[in-house]
């Protein structure tokens, strides 16, 4: 019905010259201008993304030449002596003397902090959203949704400040310090008094992405047909069993999608991590408590001084870092799609009675 109207309207509003007659008109309606317009609109985000990637790529190209493979296998990222006269020549490219660019530490920092965030946030957000979505009385559902959306809209710098002034110091004092005395591997070195480091960043990132994942999950839970839920109840299944056999199978694909969205946010988060990471350079994260850096936070932290590099290689290299970040985000997105598709068979779309 709707598509009929969509087809009819543009043809009516743009009448053809009389002579060309019905034939051309029919040909035009076969092309269906509405679909063409919608298709073009749908293409815009893809084009914008492609343009962006192309721009970053061409900005990064000199650095790709200069750094070669060692960019991906080394941890030292230094712009060299920006004020000296010595220059570094490699592969026909020029950089400041002593410049050396390796992204590996930042990649590890980004992946680890986001992984921590994901591992903490997904169970909390999904569990909470299901619990509240199924158990909270209807009158409180709407306020909960508003609350989650408000939370999701808090600027990340606020989370950063909270992390460094309140949450981090508390963690450092009450959690990290006692644990670090045990001398466990990965859980001892590098505790700072305000808690700046990998775990704190991961946890703050978790707090930031919980509302995102939770509000999507809540919507998903609301979309589960009540009739099916009643079917579980009518068999005498408990609410926990009902969640397992009804709710989760209906929404697990959506949960993957929501998690990917949250993960992408965590991977790209800049300012909050910049504040809480401790911004450690040229080192792998030595423990969960130790300062580190991510790709996004490093770009933000270094761009200012990179712009003073007269060879331009510092900025090119930061662009290359950005390129790696974009690539990882894209890979995560496609992996999420793949997982979602391979998960569960088919959830009904207008099938059955």
């Amino acid at each position, binding site marked *: 019905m709707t598509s009929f109207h969509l087809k009819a309207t543009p043809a009516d509003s743009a009448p053809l010259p009389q002579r060309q007659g019905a034939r051309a008109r029919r040909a035009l309606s076969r092309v269906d201008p509405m679909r063409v317009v919608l298709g073009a609109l749908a293409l815009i985000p893809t084009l914008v993304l492609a343009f962006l990637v192309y721009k970053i790529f061409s900005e990064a190209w000199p650095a790709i030449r200069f750094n070669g493979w060692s960019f991906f296998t080394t941890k030292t990222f230094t712009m060299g002596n920006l004020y000296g006269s010595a220059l570094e020549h490699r592969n026909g490219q020029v950089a400041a003397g002593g410049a050396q660019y390796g992204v590996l530490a930042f990649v590890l920092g980004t992946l680890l902090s986001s992984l921590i965030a994901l591992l903490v946030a997904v169970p909390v957000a999904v569990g909470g959203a299901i619990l509240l979505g199924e158990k909270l*009385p*209807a009158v409180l559902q709407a306020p909960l949704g508003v609350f989650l959306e408000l939370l999701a809209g808090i600027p990340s710098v606020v989370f950063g400040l909270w992390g460094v002034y309140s949450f981090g110091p508390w963690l450092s004092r009450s959690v990290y310090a006692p644990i670090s005395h045990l001398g466990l591997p990965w859980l001892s070195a590098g505790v700072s008094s305000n808690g700046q480091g990998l775990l704190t960043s991961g946890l703050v990132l978790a707090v930031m992405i919980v509302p995102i994942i939770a509000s999507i999950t809540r919507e998903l839970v609301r979309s589960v*047909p009540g*009739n*099916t*839920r*009643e*079917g*579980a*109840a*009518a*068999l*005498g*299944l*408990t609410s926990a*069993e009902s969640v397992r*056999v*009804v709710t989760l*199978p*209906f929404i697990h694909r959506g949960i993957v999608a929501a998690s990917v969205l949250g993960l992408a946010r965590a991977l790209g988060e800049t300012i909050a991590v910049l504040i809480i990471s401790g911004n450690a350079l040229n080192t792998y994260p030595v423990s969960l408590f130790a300062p580190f850096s991510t790709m996004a936070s490093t770009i933000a932290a270094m761009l200012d001084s990179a712009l003073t590099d007269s060879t331009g290689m510092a900025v090119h290299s930061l662009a290359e870092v950005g390129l790696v970040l974009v690539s990882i985000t894209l890979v995560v997105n496609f992996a999420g799609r793949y997982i979602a598709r391979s998960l*569960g*068979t*088919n*959830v*009904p779309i207008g*099938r*059955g*009675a």
Partner: protein
Amino acid sequence: MSPTVNLSTGERRPLLRPGTSEVAPTADDIVLSTQHVSFFYGDVQALSDISLDVHRQEITALIGPSGCGKTTFLRCLNRLNDMVPRTRLEGQVLFDGEDLYAKSVRPIDIRRRIGMVFQRANPFPKSIYENVAIAPRANGQRGNLDDLVEESLRRAALWDEVKDKLKSSAFDLSGGQQQRLCIARAIAVEPEVLLMDEPASALDPVATQAIEDLMQDLKRDYTIVIVTHNMQQAARTSDRTAFFTVDQRPEGRVGVLVEYDDTNTIFTNPKDPRTEDYVTGRFG
């Protein structure tokens, strides 16, 4: 039907916990008894003063025009209406002589003993096999459930159609197949009472016949309450028939029980002219 299959669900929980007050005993052959039951969705009354006894090992048919409250009434019998917010039940429902709505009664325990097949098929988003096996497993049955699944699917007249694709999604089935799957799911836990809300409305004559055979078969051990719009089906299968209708009152349309009697009487010699009009097809 293979006689080696053991459909026993094992231990059943007692309906009432110790310390529950006694209620008036009812005749032993009465499984469910509603006494002056009225039901409200918010402020809107859907049922008024329904008193009806469901007899053990019988098939009780509920008939009546659309919207007269048959489904609502059925859902009062397994406390499924508890799940609908802002609803209220007045009067009493007795299950084996005990107050179904007593504070000490857990709806979950009730629903394991009073099964239900819904008006619209509502399979779980799981495999065909899992749909049948979930509830027995949740009730504590261990080990291999293959025989139980097969037996339940056979009785619901679905086995031959699905035996080669038990692992595929229940949503791959047609609407009628899904409905039979829901019947298989309900009988797999061997409820004492089976509430069926128009189970045959999406089925072809062959499957309908199979379900009616199943009902006769189940009747030997269990009790069935069935809602149907099909007069022949009610006349054919049931022992007793209750005719509900909508009563126009100043405060709104309310479902009432007009007449409840032996099916034979309802269809051949009803006392109320409204019943006669309905069963003979003269109803508006």
